């Protein structure tokens, strides 16, 4: 071999060795994270992730992003949002349940984890989580077009009883929580209310707006822009009490139908978090709730604050679980193995 070729080969060998060393160095450093400091240390000392089991742009996602921004300012550490949608929130929720309970992975979780316990062939388990703090809730509704003749729930029920086949109802999905509300509503008021599932609350609302569907039970926050434009009328809400911003809208209970659970959103962590860590996170989030940006966000989105923490939160979730299970069985949607 000529000297030149020898040199070139030597160079290549050196380059490869160097590259390999660099690779080793990088991979070792990736593994050699500073070991988790003991619980008494400051938290957080690195990036915190809020997992959102829904696609970006939805209301859970927005909530998580605004919360993440607020927490970043308080903790002076990056708080990022990671979306892991799929299977009606199951994929992301299962990921959260299987994560390290050191407080660096949290999740913005909603009522869906309760329904997917029974509806999803790969079920979630509400007991696999640490319930840290609630964020907001959003009641379901019975919404109709404003040019329809019914001014209250009773009128709607009477009309539907007298005119079977003329009234149809849209939901945001075959296994959505608002579909469960409509099934329960129909059962408990003794009416036939065929439910037409659409893909998301947008198409469900459009269907009513177009006049092709009579009513829907989509949550209030999504209906409000159409209330303001006078396209829709809300006959009732499923919250336990009337909402202060909408004193004219009665609750289902007041109208004689016993449905009083709402869509909740909260921050959860994997099971097994230490009480110290939980308290640290709770106090930080409660601080965010007092900021002006948070209050503006809640106001513009028309969300109701849901501030149960820790065990109260878990008890609330456990409390509504039996009626959810019942509704799912009524709707014939049990698919969990």
């Amino acid at each position, binding site marked *: 071999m000529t000297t030149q070729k020898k040199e070139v080969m030597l160079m290549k060998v050196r380059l490869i060795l160097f590259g390999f060393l660099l690779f080793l160095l990088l991979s070792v450093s990736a593994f050699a994270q500073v070991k988790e400091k003991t619980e008494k240390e400051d938290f957080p000392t690195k990036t915190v992730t809020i997992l959102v089991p829904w696609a970006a*742009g939805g209301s859970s996602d927005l909530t998580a992003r605004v919360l993440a921004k607020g927490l970043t300012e308080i903790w002076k550490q990056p708080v990022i949002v990671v979306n892991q949608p799929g299977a009606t929130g199951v994929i992301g929720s299962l990921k959260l349940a299987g994560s390290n309970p050191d407080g660096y992975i949290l999740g913005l979780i909603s009522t869906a984890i309760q329904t997917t316990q029974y509806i999803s062939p790969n079920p979630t388990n509400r007991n696999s989580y640490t319930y840290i703090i609630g964020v907001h809730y959003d009641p379901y509704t019975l919404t109709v077009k404003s040019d329809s003749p019914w001014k209250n729930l009773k009128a709607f029920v009477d009309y539907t009883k007298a005119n079977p086949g003329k009234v149809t109802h849209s939901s945001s999905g075959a296994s959505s929580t608002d579909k469960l509300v409509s099934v329960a509503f129909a059962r408990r008021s003794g009416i036939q209310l065929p439910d037409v599932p659409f893909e998301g609350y947008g*198409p469900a609302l459009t269907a009513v707006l177009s006049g092709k569907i009579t009513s829907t039970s989509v949550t209030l926050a999504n209906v409000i822009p159409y209330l*303001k434009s006078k396209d829709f009328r809300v006959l009732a809400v499923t919250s336990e009490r009337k909402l202060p911003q909408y004193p004219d809208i009665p609750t289902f209970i007041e109208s004689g139908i016993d449905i009083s659970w709402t869509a909740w959103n909260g921050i959860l962590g994997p099971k097994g978090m230490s009480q110290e860590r939980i308290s640290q996170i709770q106090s930080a989030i409660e601080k965010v709730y007092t900021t002006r940006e948070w209050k503006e966000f809640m106001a513009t989105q028309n969300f109701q604050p849901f501030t149960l923490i820790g065990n109260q939160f878990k008890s609330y979730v456990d409390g509504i679980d039996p009626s959810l299970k019942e509704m799912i069985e009524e709707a014939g949607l049990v698919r969990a193995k």
Partner: protein
Amino acid sequence: MDLFQGILHGFSIALVPTKLFACFAGVLVGTAVGVLPGIGPSGSIALLLPLTFSMDTTSAIIMLAGIYYGTMYGGSTTSILVNVPGEAQSVVTCLDGYQMARQGRAGPALGISAFGSFIAGTIGVIGLMVIAPPLARFALEFGPAEIFGLVLLAFALVGYLASGSMTKALMMSVLGLLLASVGMESITAVPRFTFGSVNLQSGINLVPLIMGLFGVSEVLLSLEESSSEGKLNARRHQPKFWDLFPNRKDWRNSFWPITRGSLLGFIIGLLPGGTGIVASFSSYGIEKKISRHPERFGKGAIEGVAGPESANNGAAQGAFIPLLTLGIPGNASMALTLGALRIHGVIPGPLLIQEHPQVFWGVVASMYIGNFLLLILNLPLIGIWVRLLSIPTSVLYSMIILFCTIGAYGVNNSVFDIGVLFFFGFLGYVLKSLNFELAPLILGFILGPVMETSAKQALIMSGGHFSIFFSTRISTLLLVLTFLVIVTAVYSGIKHGKMSRTMEALKREMDASKEKD
């Protein structure tokens, strides 16, 4: 405020340095995202969403909108040059665009794509500005029964996508339908073909599917070429400067496809479920059907690039209509834009134009500017893109695989989707090698669930009576059109088909033998 005042107001907002910068940044990112195969508009919008928190509302939406319609420009680049779609919507451009590149006409293909996109984008913005609210209400007329008719019509046009064997094309569209049925069924939530996997519960994701079937498979196919051919065949010859642009004949051929594509795309974009893919497929099918020389399609007909590219840009503009006038997002990118609006405290709904005119008019004005910026951005780049082909294929294709993988993962932060990418990559390789066309598969995959779901929804609404499909003028019209398309296809099949050709050959022989006697 009326139209004239509105648009003036809009320009006064949009022509300010901050907004101009937002617009430029948006379209630049959009073009880059469009060019890179695998990484799509919704992924990049999601990534940049936090960035928009610190911007004012109008700038934020200008930027996000710029990204969205910008990707429609860039998406055709890799489709034409290496037969790998840059975006899901650009799949159709691969059909004739790549053939044009192989004939040394990559420049004109890219050029007509840019111009077509610009014209479509501009027509779309004018439409958005002038008739958005009435159009939005028109779109409301499309309920499940009407959507069923529309999709059925689109399916009838599938046959026109096929350049080769019709049987194979139909097989592929059925395979697409089967693949689409994976997941929990949309009306009864019954899991189908999920094999117990939670990852398949929501079905197969479109982006990894398309990137695998078209992108990864193309790379695998190229591995077959001997390693001595390090550079792509397409540009052995470096084209002269003016050859880089469409010539007069190209323009003549493309004029009507661009016009038709723009309008078709715009209308499809504003309908529920109308996406860029549906628009570009439909445009291709229509152009082929109307053309006097349909046999040119699939072999480098510029109409097959001009029409679909205009259509997907038209659809991108049309998609803003339901969002800005009714607050209903038509696709994932629009949902993200809706999210961005909400975070800034602007709740989209029927009152958006009245309550926040600066947002609406500012965005509309920025779209004119953005489309223009994109044109002047993309035209000089054509020469550079054509040079891109000189990169050794080993590097080029490695980069393609890299970006496809990043894109596939990035859709849902899911490792499973990477598996989907490569599974369909291998499947696509096998199918392409056996001369199966993949475009009908995508059509089946996308339209199949829409057809099934809307049919079921319509039947629930009507209590099981099939008469609902003829209950409105629109649905009846669509079904009649479908029938006509099928009938004319059968008729011309009989007239020009094997049987008549055999008969004619026989007749000629008989005449010839008569002469001999």
